[in-house]
């Protein structure tokens, strides 16, 4: 079971609470978790990753275990605590002023 924490505006859009729990079929990677997330909440397609290229949107970041995973390969296995469900994967809107 993977725990995903979305930013507030995406929780509102998807109609979810703070944390989403996903059963992922296979070794959890960013790509697989996001595929599963978008499958469960189709309204999130295009809001975290580009809908066509599946690349992370420029102002979105992925954090877990106090590390920035944004620049990791989407096919790299996620950290053990995320895989075990003891730590969540944070989807974060990058800080931008104004």
């Amino acid at each position, binding site marked *: 079971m993977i725990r995903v924490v979305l930013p507030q505006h*995406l929780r509102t859009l998807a109609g979810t609470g703070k944390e989403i729990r996903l059963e992922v079929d296979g070794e959890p990677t960013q790509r697989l978790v996001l595929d599963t997330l978008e499958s469960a909440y189709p309204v999130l397609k295009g809001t975290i990753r580009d*809908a066509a290229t599946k690349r992370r949107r420029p102002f979105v970041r992925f954090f877990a275990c106090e590390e920035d995973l944004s620049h990791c390969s989407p096919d790299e296995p996620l950290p053990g605590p995320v895989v075990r469900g003891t730590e969540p994967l944070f989807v974060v809107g990058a800080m931008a002023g104004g």
Partner: protein
Amino acid sequence: MTGVRVLVGTRKGAFVLTSDGMRDAWDVSGPFFSGWEVYHLKGSPADPGRLYASQSSSWSGQVIQRSDDGGASWQPVGNTFSYAGVPGTHQWYDGTPHPWEFARVWHLEPALDDPDTVYAGVEDAALFKSTDAGLTWSELAGLRGHGSGSSWQPGAGGMCLHTIVLDPSLPERMFAAISAAGAFRSDDAGQTWRPVNRGLQSQGIPDSDAEVGHCVHRIAMHPDRPSVLFMQKHWDVMRSDDAGESWHEISGNLPTDFGFPIDVHAHEPETIYVVPITSDSLHYPPEGKLRVYRSRTGGDEWQALGTGLPASDCYINVLREAMAVDGLQDCGIYFGTTGGQVYGSADSGDTWEPLVRDLPRVLSVEVQTLP
């Protein structure tokens, strides 16, 4: 009694203002899609309960929302806007080729006779169509593909298709305007297009009367006379009496002919409205006085309308999508400002009152006249 619904898109959400036919008391609901930019929302002429909204953010991209109950509730629909075929390139600011990239939907235009059909004008400039109430979108690629697309360049706000005008007398005819490419017309329901910019003069491009490259800000049409078009260009207010085949200037005695919105009175096809802005670098009203200008002669002769509007220290702008009219007997005129006010006039512009103040920066205003 009839009523009016004013749909306001802002930098941080959408608002719906409603009033009865007297238009002297307004109920404000919202923000909807709080925190997101709402470039445009518009109702279907065929079903006043059906609304479409463009919700976007630099963080999370594009969402399209649909309401079937006049804005009381909304549901997200399709947000995939894929350019047809190999998108190719347009010109970037520095003149180099730049791949076509979808950024956002600037304008949603519901069809005149079918609430499930809606057109979307997007950045980078292209026209999309949905026939299933916004669930799926397909590009009308004849516009980008008509021949000049590779030479289009963005304006300061991006290369956006911001204006879609449907001809009620000829269902196959439609107009689109792109910054900074110009005006285009289709006579086959959007399959093929050609530029309609003859008569436009723009000093900001190398060839001032080029076929394309003009920064058209807005086009307006009266439904009873669809061959007459009015245009607010980057500079110059223009008119066409032949469905865009040729244009002539009608700026006349305006204090400045720079501006963004233009609209036509609901019952007087020769009565038009603009909001003059000081210049392309000074995006605020001349002398800090907010005034709408009205021409009752189809242009050239303009009258300042300022009763009820700020007469000093006003340094806001009115963006291209931010003016609309209602269809009541005494035509109502509405516009929103970058300072967050929405002003309305229930007497064709003679007097004005703020409907609401202190909203986020207003990006668009549309009006529905309710039965």
